[in-house]
């Protein structure tokens, strides 16, 4: 699972008011190189919750991202490179996602988070 997806996911448990961001428990991270697409990065940037994103990247062991970012950063190639790397190349392969309110664990196996809820949570 990439951080792009992590940044969109929130906890879906009944009664949880703010299920974002899911905390990450890391067991294994892999990197897969993909081609940089500046158009996509510019397009997706306003939708990224930056604080959660930078925090998640740090959890995966990538601390190069600035604490805060705004759209003026997008002109810099260096920034785009880092943004791209953290957003699309880092994969959480094994670990878990944890609901910030209830502490419920969603295990991640082979890069696939299991977001299935139990019957009483739905």
């Amino acid at each position, binding site marked *: 699972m990439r951080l792009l997806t992590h940044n969109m996911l929130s906890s879906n448990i009944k009664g949880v008011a703010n299920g974002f961001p899911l905390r990450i428990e890391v067991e294994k991270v892999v990197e897969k190189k993909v081609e940089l697409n500046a158009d996509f990065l510019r397009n997706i940037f306003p939708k990224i919750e930056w604080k959660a994103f930078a925090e998640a990247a740090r959890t995966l062991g990538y601390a190069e991202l600035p604490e805060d970012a705004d759209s003026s950063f997008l002109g810099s190639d260096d920034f785009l490179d880092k943004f791209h790397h953290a957003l699309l190349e880092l994969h959480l392969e094994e670990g878990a996602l944890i609901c910030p309110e209830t502490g419920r664990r969603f295990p991640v196996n082979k890069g696939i988070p299991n977001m299935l*809820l139990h019957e009483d949570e739905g």
Partner: protein
Amino acid sequence: MSSRPEVQAPPEIFYDDVEARKYTSSSRIMEIQAKLSERALELLALPDDGLPRLLLDIGCGSGLSGETLSENGHQWFGLDISQSMLDVALEREVEGDLLLGDMGQGLGLRPGVIDGAISISAVQWLCNADRTSHDPRLRLKAFFGSLYRCLARGARAVFQLYPENLAQRELILSFAMRAGFAGGMVVDFPHSTKRRKEYLVLTCGPPSISTSVPKGKGEDGESCSEDESSDDEAEQTVCISDRHRPRKKQKLTRKGKGREWILRKKEQKRRRGDEVPLDTKYTARKRKPRF
């Protein structure tokens, strides 16, 4: 229609390793899936600026439909309930991310982040109650409600689906409308049984020129799709309207069969050589009301 997978088993059970394997080995299935997803992407009508978008694939299965999205340069992630299908998707090394989840429990996504959603042959599964705790209505409501929230304003969602009957189609459509979507059904090749394909095209957000507003009685699913009707003559699109026939009243008004009718039937059976009870004063006598 016993060949419909929906009536055989719940999706997470039906799409086991064997069934999932078909999606990598059968070139026929792959071709159909690719065609369906291409058409769905076309109906999604993303702005024609060549920008890559973030799309959602609901019921992504082995990632066949996602592949079409990747080929068109979009980023996507997919949701499916079958672990076996997702394993196949991993093997195929699809580019999008995969989530194991149940669309009937609602999509746990942040509001307004998705540029478009497609779903190939999946939504009709929501109409099944596979567990005692499942209520199709609640599941449809949760699904469409959460989808509406996570789509960006003006974004579209296109579902290719195989409704079992008219009632199911209307159920799906009415819940989509209730969630706030505008749109309707688009039917390709309505006169062909094999090539006929139905798409539910929904637009998120308040009606505008770009959305096709359903005509008629609002919520009951009487809808026309105008801007979707493509210029291509082969791909005809038509309106779907309520074609419910009034239920036959015959059964409700009939009082029951009389003694005469029973005697006649017994005589018929006797002539055929069947063993029939004797005709007595009790034959065809009305039961007491307390019975």
